[in-house]
């Protein structure tokens, strides 16, 4: 893998992360925020894979598996919360549940 490919891949990873982050801030629907969070995790995962491939090391792939597990755990928790809010309080908009601060 050449250095150019690495830079391109890292730029792509940064782009995915930024997109996810923008989605997290701009979207108010909880489901879309969860999707954005998944994208925010996918960007760094791609960066790890690219770095590992460039340096010829297995650590990049190991980190990718770690992030995969992290993302799975996060989605499990997030979807559970989303379903509970949906069924219990009929909430879609994350800004309307600001009462937790009290």
């Amino acid at each position: 893998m050449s250095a150019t490919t690495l830079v391109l891949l890292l730029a792509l990873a940064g782009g995915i992360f930024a997109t996810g982050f923008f989605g997290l801030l701009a979207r108010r629907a909880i489901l879309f925020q969860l999707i954005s969070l998944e994208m925010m995790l996918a960007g760094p995962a791609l960066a790890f894979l690219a770095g590992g491939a460039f340096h010829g090391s297995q650590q990049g792939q190991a980190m990718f598996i770690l992030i995969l597990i992290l993302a799975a755990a996060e989605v499990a928790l997030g979807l559970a919360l989303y379903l509970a809010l949906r069924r219990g309080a009929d909430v879609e908009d994350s800004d309307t549940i600001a009462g937790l601060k009290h």
Partner: protein
Amino acid sequence: MLSPYLLLLLVPAPPLAVFLILGLDPFFLRRKAVQGLALLGGIAPFFAMLPLLGLCLGTECRGVMPIFTLVFGQSEVALALLLDPMSTLVGLTVAAVGAMVMTYAIDYMSDARIADLRRFFALMNLFLAAMLTMVLAGDTITFFFGWELMGLCSFFLIAYNTGLPQAVAAGRKAFIITRFADAFLLAGLLLLFLEANSVRLDVLIPAGTIMTEDRHVVIALLLLAGALGKSAQVPFHTWLPSAMAGPTPVSALLHSATMVAAGAFMLARFSPIVMSEPAVQAIAAIFGVGTAAFGALSAIFQADVKRLLAYSSISQIGFMVLAVGLGAPQVAIAHFVVHAMFKSLLFLAAGDITHGSDLGTSMMAMRGALRRRPIAFVTYVAGASSLAGLPFVTAGWWSKEAILATAWSGGAFGILVWVVALLTATCTAIYAFRPVFEALQPEPEHLSRARRGHAVALDLHYRKRWGSAFIGLPLVMLASGSLLGGVLVGPIIRFLGAEPPHPSHLPELVAAFAPFVGIATAAALTFVPSLAAAVAGARDMRRPTRLDRKFQRWVIEPYVRLVRFLAGNRMGARAEAELELRHVQIVRWLSRGARMDGIYQALFVRPFVNTVRWLTGHRGGTVDPVGTLPVTLAQRGMQALVTRLAHDRFDRFWMRSANRLVRLWVLASALQTGRSRDYALGAALGTAALLVIAWGTTWN
């Protein structure tokens, strides 16, 4: 591998832990929990001492457990605990008596309010920890620390009934007198440290024996003075009888068996230094036998059981000091062990008997004891026989006989001491059996309501119900110790590395006769009406005694003349009349029988108070500019420094700052929107800022 001497640390640790728990009390413990904890802290040291005794009997009996060492220059401050025959024996005695008294106190104090109970047991446990630390100390700093902590606990426990002014005054008196004597001890220990460049006893004591003679005498005298103060020996004895204002378990543990006798233990511990100087040794012997005789004589005429026993402690510890002075510290320790058993027994039994009466702790309260409290009465008789030294069947006889035999073999001086000690032993039997015979008399039928109300007002919480096993068990165990402990006296002396003295038959026969004479006299004093009336008359001291008149002639009148002379012409007629009145008051006050106390009051306390009043211009008219200067300066300094930082202003400063923070709080709470999107933005911005900082700081 762990050193077996680590166990030494476990001996004072449980009572100390219990003190911390009860003293801080984070759990708001209930009554049962407080009692259980106190019992645990009281008994655990005994079981920690047992393996140490086994170690000491089995293998080597000389071990040091270092705690902390600080070296500066050529001097070394090494804190350590020490296991040797003396510390094992005394530590075991203290732990055993402590366990007994704590068990007894569980029931005895059970009527107290919960807060008082917690305070009481916290202090008792702290005392036990301090005493064990002092006994097991391997260096003078730990030793002195334990010694002073004991004094502090003694002060708090004497003044346990904080509602009673006389209890608080007694505590203060004990505290001041013993601190005064402790200053001598501290000076002696520091001089020893300068000689030896070490605080460890195993280095210090050998170094102390080989120094030059003048220093040696000074140090030995300072140590002796410290011991006399702690052990309430003449001339420091006045604090102990007043200390009986504390509860009975306190008197039994602190003011008879263990803490007061610590002076004798200290002398025995430092005996190589004291003994290598014949003059100091003779002084110790004279003070010891003199105190023994004085205490025994005073005890005969006491009207209060606890005060009688207090004078008895003074007298018995005089015997211990005498033994050290005669060059037999091993015998002194043997008497310490035996005395601890029978004296705590006497206090506990007398406490139980008088607890069931309405008359406080007066001698009258003993009446009818046989019917009211049979166990306590029988054990009291056992303790009294041991105190009187009934031949062969009691422990007191064996240890006292060892002291008398040591005196007999000590040349002409020794025989003189022996005669005085024998007369003292006779007096001992008299005062030991006076309460017993008093107790045999029937209980007074009718009690005036005023007396009853008085006892209740004094918070002497009397009860009519029977004592439980918590009271009976310690009494029976201590009684068996007081009677059968005699077989231990010989082994104890050998264990400490000396041979028990072998008296010749004639003095032993004479000494065996003395207790019976004393008991017969005590019976006569109680049952022959004319003699009983004479004792009562002597006790009341309504008229001035010869001693008072002598004191009047040699002390008060010269003092009055001196004051007149110093006052010169400035003294007006009114001031002279006032002085005359005060003088009459002093005489009248002295004639009420407070003799030694009165002398101290007149010689030290009154002049001191008057000097302070005079210097502050309190009397009016005689303001002394030189004397008032330091007071004025101190007051100014207080205004400048303390008042400025006093509670109010300091508080206000803090509260103002806190009020300013309210606006900040409003601002900060506006940031908390509760919206997850805002928090995500905040987290991202923070991470970005951190990245920028990291990038900036690693820039090359």
